[in-house]
């Protein structure tokens, strides 16, 4: 055997002469970092880098799950397709980041192990991404806050010392730019729309704005890695203020949500919304451990 990789083994295992063993298009799930040089960079603690990749990967995975919950519920078919595409981008980023975390932390866990077999207190996402979907205004506002902050972060991480994280961020920044554009244009359309759409955008901002601050609050791992997210605050707020002004929406003055004894999502302290989300995400994998098809 020259191939140690899952999908190549799958491709070889089939009864057909050409080895076509996948039961349907797209079911050959390859390692998203297949054959990418996995050596950790010198001078960086692999455990810290793994923890950081887990944070960013969990953000992307959980928001991806929230977005796909919009399927069959979006106001228009085009928006459903758009939200599915955004979720797919985030899922792809999550797969790469979780795989990277598993490579670095020495546990040997792959992306599936990390996604399906951790409890909510082991998830390291910010709480903003786990909150219930709410109405379409909340969907738009959450996307606006998250995509604006994450694009800015990915642009910086594209120059990170870890070549894998840098490459994931470089592509992710281009994808997040589309997410931000989508959310920005809907923010303007709804904020500067009808009386009702304006009112609902105001309500959505009131609900979600307090959770923005967590994206700028450094965790000790981020400080040790030199990726202090508080540096994002000024450029991200400036970008958000421009969009909100165009949308005739005021910049909320509400304070950031309090931490629980100094801890929040990055420490595994979550809202009650995460548990049910993970239950839905994980139920099939847990009902049929190790299942293949």
């Amino acid at each position, binding site marked *: 055997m020259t191939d140690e990789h899952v999908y*190549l083994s799958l491709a070889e295992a089939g009864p057909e002469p050409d080895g076509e063993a996948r039961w349907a298009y797209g079911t050959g799930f390859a390692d998203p970092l297949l054959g990418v040089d996995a050596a950790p960079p010198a001078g960086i603690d692999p455990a810290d880098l793994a923890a950081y990749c887990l944070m960013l990967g969990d953000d992307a995975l959980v928001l991806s799950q929230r977005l796909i919950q919009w399927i069959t519920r979006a106001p228009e078919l085009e928006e459903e397709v758009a939200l599915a595409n955004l979720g797919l981008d985030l899922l792809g980023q999550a797969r790469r980041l979780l795989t990277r975390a598993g490579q670095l932390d020495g546990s040997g866990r792959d992306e599936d192990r990390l996604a399906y077999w951790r409890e909510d207190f082991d998830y390291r996402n910010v709480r903003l991404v786990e909150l219930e979907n709410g109405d379409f205004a909340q969907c738009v506002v959450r996307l606006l806050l998250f995509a604006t902050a994450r694009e800015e972060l990915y642009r910086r991480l594209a120059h990170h010392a870890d070549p894998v994280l840098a490459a994931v961020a470089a592509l992710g920044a281009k994808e997040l730019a589309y997410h931000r554009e989508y959310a920005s244009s809907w923010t303007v359309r709804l904020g500067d729309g009808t009386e009702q759409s304006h009112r609902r955008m105001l309500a959505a901002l009131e609900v979600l704005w307090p959770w923005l601050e967590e994206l700028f609050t450094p965790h000790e791992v981020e400080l040790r890695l030199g990726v202090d997210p508080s540096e994002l605050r000024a450029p991200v707020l400036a970008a958000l203020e421009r969009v909100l002004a165009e949308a005739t929406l005021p910049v909320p003055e509400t304070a950031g949500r309090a931490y629980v004894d100094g801890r929040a999502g990055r420490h595994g302290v979550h809202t009650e919304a995460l548990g049910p989300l993970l239950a839905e995400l994980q139920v099939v994998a847990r009902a049929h451990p190790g299942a293949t098809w």
Partner: protein
Amino acid sequence: MSTVPERAREVAAAVPDPELPMLTLADLGVLADVEEADGAVTAWLTPTYSGCPAIAEMAADVSRRLRAAGFDRVEVRLRIDPPWSSDRISAEGRRKLAAAGIAPPVPGGMRQPDRMLQLGPTRRVVACPQCGSEDTEELSRFGSTACKSLWRCRSCREPFDRIKEI
């Protein structure tokens, strides 16, 4: 130093894209490199989008074609740095896309570094791949796959896909 076997490269370069079979992986810029050392062939692929579900199919197709061409030791690896860009689609690839009714991306049309300051959607003149009219409008930035947007021609009234710049 590895040598580049022209035949292995030709075989890999001829593999069609699973979703856009009128294009090869080479046309699409997904095939990043083909190396040969001591009889073992390594093909390097660069995925388009982070979540592109076709990459496993692409890798399996490349591996299968190379084996069918007589290469026994074949490895397919991913190269994610530098990331894929729509600029990697060859001129031939753009021509094939247009011939198939899909508007190709504009070379060098990636967004500028200061896009953070931009608010609204970028206005672009996109010619209808059916009738050539430039009187077209974007219906949705997100289409049937991650790499496409959905457009409509106001002249011939036909909808069409367009590969996005990234």
